[in-house]
């Protein structure tokens, strides 16, 4: 069957459906056909996706299509294809979406394994796209190479939302299938228990992709049998270092954390995963990074027969979970600021970190470069300065007693401190910036207020901290 049946429209090149003119059929898959379409008022290349809905066709095609029809028009941003229109089953079902140029990651399977840096960059961009999707209340549930594309500008674009779950819309797949539906090699273990509302399921799938792209081997094989798929509920994958001796420990740490059986042991959010992939030197290495063997049989058997580990958890609230796991950045001036201000900053950071156990703190310091001396940064003196600042940041943070995987330190070298802080926050999906106000300082009079500019221009919440009145008076 080449075309989907239609009641009122003949689906063929040249046909006009609701103002969209069909061009060529660019793809004919098991679930749907894809057509290039044009519309007089739209200059963007577009695709019309028409589901197969004939007698005897896979019923999941219809439900999956209904989910896409509900979810796609609600999504926005660079990480999803824009949606231009939908048509319903009463006449001709379709969705019209932006046509993303290029191929999906599926096209790269012949090149596997990829270099570590490139694979980590691909996974990092995909994690950033997932973070954006999760913020829009949607869990993708079918992350695999053929669902990921890239814009010419570099951003990852996620496609195919037929299995997705929207936290604020009815889940049409809820009772549709007795068995979990999806792509077996990439499916998170909790999906086998019927859990559809945990965003960390997507992190597991991305972990499978990253493992596959760096080793050339799928961590849980390609089994489609129920027993084969269920093994991941108790059997951990072979550590990548066992397959490739030169596998970087930081990358193994990230991959195996993504592939944790318990969602709560994975990264709390896609943003935090993207953060780790973007800062290999800051990844806290645990026993995971060293492993050369799978878990011993005793552990596997305990997992298999310990029902507590395999019971579904109560319903998760996507938005609440994201909100409880923010990336907080605190900007410290180690040179100019008064000890009272730095103490006040520490108190502010401590309160936030204490209330949110999954939050992570990035301590920033800007090493200001003179406009003229910019090329001297590599000399020994500057290098020492950089290291000294890192040491100072760690020292400032030590009373917070944060677990190593919740704390990172960064020295940004820049001419313009406010711009450097803003850029860091943007690139790393920071949710909250804490910054001190340099009240009445000479620097502020000369340079203007860094905190005011950060507060005005940041895309996230900013807390501007001042020393307590008492401390200020004492200092004067």
């Amino acid at each position, binding site marked *: 069957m080449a075309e989907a049946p239609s009641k009122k429209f003949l689906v063929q090149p040249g046909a006009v459906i609701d103002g969209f003119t069909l061009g060529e059929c660019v793809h004919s898959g098991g679930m749907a056909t894809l057509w290039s379409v044009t519309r007089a008022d739209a200059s963007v290349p577009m695709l019309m996706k028409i589901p197969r809905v004939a007698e005897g066709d896979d*019923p999941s095609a*219809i*439900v999956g299509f209904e989910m896409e029809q*509900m979810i796609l028009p609600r999504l926005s941003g660079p990480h999803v294809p824009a949606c231009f229109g939908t048509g319903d089953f009463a006449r001709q079902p379709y969705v019209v979406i932006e046509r993303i140029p290029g191929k999906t990651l599926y096209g790269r399977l012949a090149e596997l394994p990829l270099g570590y840096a490139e694979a980590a960059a691909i996974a990092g961009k995909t994690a950033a796209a997932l973070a954006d999707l999760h913020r829009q209340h949607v869990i993708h549930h079918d992350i695999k190479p053929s669902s990921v594309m890239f814009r010419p500008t570099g951003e990852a674009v996620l496609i195919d939302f037929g299995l997705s779950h929207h936290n604020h*819309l*009815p*889940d*049409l797949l809820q*009772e*549709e299938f007795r068995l979990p539906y999806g792509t077996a090699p990439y499916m998170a273990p909790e999906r086998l228990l019927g859990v559809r509302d945990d965003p960390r399921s997507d992190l597991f799938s991305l972990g499978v992709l990253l493992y596959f792209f760096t080793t050339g081997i799928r961590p849980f094989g390609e089994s489609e049998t129920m027993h084969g798929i269920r093994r991941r509920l108790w059997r951990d994958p072979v550590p990548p270092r066992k397959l490739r001796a030169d596998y970087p420990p930081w990358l193994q740490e990230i991959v195996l954390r993504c592939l944790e059986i318990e969602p709560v042991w994975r990264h709390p959010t896609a943003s935090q995963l993207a953060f780790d992939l973007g800062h290999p030197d800051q990844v806290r290495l645990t026993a995971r990074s060293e492993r050369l063997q799978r878990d011993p049989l005793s552990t596997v058997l305990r997992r298999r027969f310990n029902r507590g580990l395999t019971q579904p958890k109560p319903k998760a609230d996507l938005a609440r979970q994201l909100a409880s796991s923010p990336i907080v950045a605190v900007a410290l001036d180690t040179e100019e600021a008064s000890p009272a201000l730095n103490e006040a900053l520490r108190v502010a950071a401590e309160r936030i970190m204490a209330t949110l156990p999954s939050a992570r703190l990035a301590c920033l310091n800007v090493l200001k470069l003179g406009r003229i001396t910019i090329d001297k940064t590599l000399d020994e003196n500057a290098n020492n300065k950089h290291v000294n600042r890192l040491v100072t940041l760690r020292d400032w943070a030590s009373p917070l007693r944060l677990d190593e995987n919740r704390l990172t330190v960064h020295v940004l070298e820049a001419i313009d401190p406010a711009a450097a802080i803003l850029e860091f926050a943007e690139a790393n999906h920071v949710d909250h910036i804490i910054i001190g106000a340099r009240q009445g300082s000479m620097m502020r009079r000369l340079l203007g207020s860094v905190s005011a500019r950060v507060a005005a221009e940041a895309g996230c919440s900013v807390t501007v901290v001042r020393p307590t009145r008492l401390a200020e008076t004492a200092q004067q």
Partner: protein
Amino acid sequence: MLLALFADIHANRQAFAACLEFARGRGAQRMVLLGDLVGYGADPEWTVDTAMALVGDGAVVVLGNHDQAVSATAHDFNAEAQAAMEWTRGRLDREERRFLANLPLTVQEDDRLYVHSEASHPERWRYVQSVSDAGRSMMATPIPITFCGHIHQPALYSMSSTGKMTSFVPTSDFPVQLLPGRQWLAVLGSVGQPRDGNPAACVALFDTDRREITYCRVPYDIETAAGRIRQNGLPSWLADRLLVGR
């Protein structure tokens, strides 16, 4: 057209007035009252008179079990409901009682069915408490969308062409498109006596062109509504529960 849907007003003047103002502010062109105008609350006259005026402006009203009990003895009422009903009967004049007695059990309009309890046996006042209750209602009617109330807890059910069900607790202020190609049962929360733990009044908006339903919550002057119940000597639990939405 934008419809505003109200269920289980239960003579709560403050809640009903707040919801009406909210609906008009959002541009609702037509009001649909899904039964139980009276019972429990302390302002049945105002509520019924307002409903009668709305009908004059094109509103749809269907019968609820409390509306029916004004003129016919109900056998399944608990003590509080019974006490409130006896008090209510004494408040309504002949015209108001006749208005309630003549309300239809169901009203169909385009692809929509309005009913107080559910569609399989509207006169039996069954509650939609589960997916199977919802399925029974949807199976009993060919009409694509049914709106009902009665249980005082918002929910949204759907049934695919192959009979597969979905259930969903709607998020406030988040529009959901009721996709053609499956049947829907939209159960509304209560205007005048919410029981889902949120004391704010429930009202829903339905955009007939986009087929989008939005469940909304409207804060209102609960203190006054509860005070009126106590002043009139109605069972005090009927006042207390308004404050907690249970």
